[in-house]
Each structure stands twice: as structure tokens, then as C-alpha cells.
């Protein structure tokens, strides 16, 4: 059974066809890329996969289950986590709290347990606490646990966001332009981090990225879209030499 199977997914906004007949099948364990010029519909695809939009047509099957009609938090609970193009951390809460709250779906206690501080409450809090610290440790963020994200440099905020997504224990991690706004040293760090995550966790990573260095060095397989439609797919080498991709990015020769 494949991990995720997207079949002829189409999304329209009014008259605009943002995504048309997008197909994708991942078996699990891959590290794939999604590229395309600005406004091609890449983030829309992520929004559809994470349940934020409902596809106008076509289907998304995650781990054998149709995700249409599910709310984003339900999709996340099934094992899809994502980061955002422009960092969306909860800026007035500590890094630790950010990571704890992201485990909301498996707290395992109800509101009354939180009033009465029952055994279930203590167990739940202990469990997510230990997972949160494990994640901070693994992501090398331990010393910033009690900082507010807004006080951290941009590169670290990215890492916190990835850690927050990882703490939902996803099977599929969607990274939306993780290298956007990072300097070259941070980009090197990011490449190492993503590779490390991919090697050390049982996880599939699907990333949108503009920086070719990141995509080409990380991804095993790349899909390129323009105006919502897939224009090329293949290994990094194939994509780099594909004339339609070059045309989409750089325009025609005969301008």
C-alpha cells in the first residue's frame, strides 16, 4: 500500500484553475521535491494535502484512507505535518510550549482531567513533555527551550518550526520553502538537518523549494509544475536538463 496517493487532484478558485489533474504517489521513505515558478500552485497543493482546502475534483488517499472531508487537525493526526512558507510559530509562547501544543491530538485527557489534574492528565503531560524534550534534544534546540521564538534568529526559528512539525510524529512531512530567507550558512545547516531527519526517522519528506542547491542535493525525485499542471518529473539530472523546465523558469529563447 502506498503512503499517499493523489489522483487527478484539481482545485479551482472561481475561474482560476490553481491545480489541475495533479498526480502523485509516494510509497514511503522517499525524499521528493516540488518545484515551479512563483504562483505555479505549489503551496496550494500542500494546502490540499494538509486538508486546509478541499479538492474540487480528484482524490487524496493517505495510508489507505480518503482524506477528503477531513479537517486539517484530523489530517495531521493521521500523520501529515507541515511547515509554512513564512514562519508561523506561536510567537508569545516558549519554544517548549510550541512543541508541546503541537501534540494536542494525543494528549489523551479531557478538559475535566485538566481541571482535576487526574492521573490521566499527569500521564498525558508527562508523555508529551518527554517527547518534546527528546525532540528539542534531537534538533539541538535544548538551550532555547524557554526562549520566545521571536527572540531567536531566523534560521533557528525555521528549525523550531521543523521540530514542531516533527513532534506530531508525522509519516509525511511537508516542507514549504524551508530555505526561504536563510543565509548560505543556514542553508548548509538546513540541508544537513533535512538529510539527518530523513535518515533517522521513519519518514517521507516532500518539499517545495526554490533554491536549486537544496533541491538538487536532497531530493531523489522532483516534480515541476507551472500554472497548476505538471510539466516535468524525474531525477534531479533529468529535471536540470529538461527544456520545458528551463523554459518555465527562464522563458523562451526567442524573446
Amino acid at each position: 500500500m502506498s503512503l499517499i496517493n493523489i489522483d487527478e487532484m484539481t482545485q479551482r478558485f472561481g475561474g482560476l484553475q490553481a491545480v489541475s489533474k495533479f498526480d502523485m504517489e509516494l510509497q514511503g521513505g522517499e525524499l521528493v521535491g516540488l518545484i515551479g515558478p512563483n504562483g505555479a500552485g505549489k503551496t496550494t497543493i500542500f494546502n490540499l494535502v494538509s486538508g486546509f482546502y478541499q479538492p474540487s475534483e480528484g482524490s487524496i488517499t493517505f495510508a489507505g484512507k480518503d482524506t477528503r472531508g477531513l479537517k486539517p487537525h484530523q489530517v495531521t493526526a493521521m500523520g501529515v505535518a507541515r511547515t509554512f512558507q513564512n514562519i508561523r510559530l506561536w510567537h508569545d509562547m516558549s519554544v517548549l510550549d510550541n512543541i508541546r501544543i503541537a501534540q494536542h491530538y494525543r494528549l489523551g485527557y479531557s478538559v475535566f482531567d485538566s481541571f482535576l489534574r487526574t492521573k490521566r492528565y499527569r500521564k498525558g503531560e508527562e508523555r508529551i513533555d518527554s517527547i518534546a524534550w527528546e525532540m528539542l534534544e534531537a534538533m539541538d534546540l535544548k538551550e532555547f527551550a524557554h526562549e520566545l521564538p521571536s527572540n531567536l534568529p531566523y534560521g533557528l526559528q525555521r528549525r523550531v518550526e521543523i521540530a514542531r512539525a516533527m513532534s506530531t510524529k508525522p509519516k509525511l512531512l511537508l516542507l514549504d520553502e524551508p530555505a526561504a530567507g536563510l543565509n548560505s550558512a543556514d542553508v548548509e545547516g538546513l540541508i544537513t538537518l533535512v538529510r539527518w531527519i530523513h535518515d533517522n526517522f521513519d519518514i517521507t519528506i516532500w518539499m517545495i523549494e526554490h533554491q536549486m542547491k537544496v533541491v538538487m542535493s536532497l531530493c531523489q525525485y522532483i516534480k515541476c509544475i507551472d500554472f497548476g499542471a505538471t510539466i516535468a518529473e524525474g531525477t534531479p539530472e533529468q529535471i536540470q536538463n529538461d527544456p520545458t523546465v528551463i523554459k518555465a523558469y527562464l522563458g523562451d529563447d526567442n524573446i
Partner: protein
Amino acid sequence: MEALFQNIINALQWGSFYALIALGYTLVYGVLLLINFAHGDIFMVGAYIAFGVSVFVLGTQGLGLPNWAILACGVPLTMILTAGVGVTLERIAYRPLRRKGAHRLYVVITALMCGLILENGNLALLGASRKKFPELMEKAVWTFGNVSVTNLKVIVIVAAFATFAFLNFIVTRTRIGMAMRAVSYDKFAIPLMGIPVDSVIVFTFVLGSGFAGLAGMLFAMSYPILEPYMGALIGWKAFIAAVVGGIGDIRGAFVGGFLLGFIEILVVAFFPSTFRDLIAFSILLLILWIKPTGLFGVARHQKI
């Protein structure tokens, strides 16, 4: 049938007041995204200014002008003075907060407090005794069958429509209107484009409060008893009307105001009058439930 026509005319008049006040709410909201909760009280102050102007300045205890002259000078004078009140509020209460970048809700609370100050300050200054507004216009009643229309009703309705047309023209067709719409889109980029944001905001307050003054004067002429709390309830209701129409949109405020007027008059026609608020608000809630952005509102697309 005749009862229906009579009700429609009454509803048009009643809705005109809501529409005039709702226009002020929506103008300020459209530009500043600020619920100016003091607006209902500015309307009340407008009515009192109209009273002061037409009694103590132009009327019997002032210059002693004839009624037509009081009307001719009183309307613009009231509008200007009320606009002054609105601009004063903006200058001393809202602008400093905006400059400090305070949370939007704190500005709203300040507006709420300013409303209370106006209401109770008036009560403290002028006492609780109700003021009787002088009759400035000889009442003419035209009857068609059993339907009677007074000249005042016609004037109120015409004034509401004219105000709508005027404001719509300003907002959609003039340079300052374009600036107002621009400010509501992006407050940070606009100063960089060379548009003086503060002047635009002051102009917005002038328009909104000026027409609240007009509404106050017309209201005082139609229901000639003034009291300090008259603005509170009608202000809240007009605000609700503006939201149901789709706040930030001139057409929405206008339609919402009349809608509320119609609902209220029709409810009173068929139910005991004590049910007016209950049924009117239930209907408005239902509309918001079905269309959460109001009749004319457009949902802002959320980008991630």
C-alpha cells in the same frame, strides 16, 4: 394593503436613521478597521448641538431668526460642529493610541469609554431633564387613501438617500475616496506612496460625524424629545445593521440600516412591541449565520 404601505413608509423613515448612523460606522471601520463605539453618542451629541444651535444661537433665545432661516443655517452648522466633536475624539483619544501601535481592541475600548464620557458628561452637565426640540417646520400631511405621509418623513428619507449617493460618490469617484480605500487595504504602504494618512483619517471622521449630526438633527425634528441615552441603543443597533450589511461597505450599511428598519416596523405590526428586539436580532443573527461576512461583505482570503 394600505396598512402595508403605511408600514413601508414608516419603515423607510425609521430605517433612514439607522442607515445614516450605520454609514458613519462603516466609513470609519472601512478606513481604520476600528469599531467606533462612540458613534451612537456622537449622533446624540449631534441632536443636542442641533437643539443648542436652533434655540440658543439662531432661534428664540439667540438671534431670533425665522424658522426657515434656522433650518437653512442650522443644518450645516450642526454638521460642522458635530464633525468637530468626532475629529476631537480622533485627535485626542484614538490617534495617540494608533501612533503607539496599541492592540486594536484597546482602541475599541477607548472608543467605548469615549461614548460613556459623552453620554454621562452630557447628563451631568445638562441634567436629566428631557429637552423639547422646537418645531422648525410647519407640519404638512398628505394623505393617499388611508396612507398619510408627512413632509418631515419625506425629508428624512430623501436626506438618507442623498447622503448615500453623496458618500458613494466620494468613496468611489474622488481622489480622497480612493485614498480612503487605499488606507483600508494597507496602512503601512500608504504613507510611502505620498498619501497623508492622518488627513485621510480626519476626513473620514469629518464625513462620518457630520452625517451623524445630520441624523441627530432630523431625529430631533421627528421625535422632538432629547435625552442623553438616546444615542446608545440606536447606535448599537445601527452598528449591528452595518455589520449585517457587510461592514466597511457603504452599500452594506445603507441596505443594512433599511433592513433593520423594515424588520423592526414589521415585527411591531404583527407582534406585541416588546418582541421587537428579540425578533429583530434573531433575524439579523440568522443572516449573519448564513452569510458570516454580511450581505455585501467579501471574505478576506487567508493566505498561508
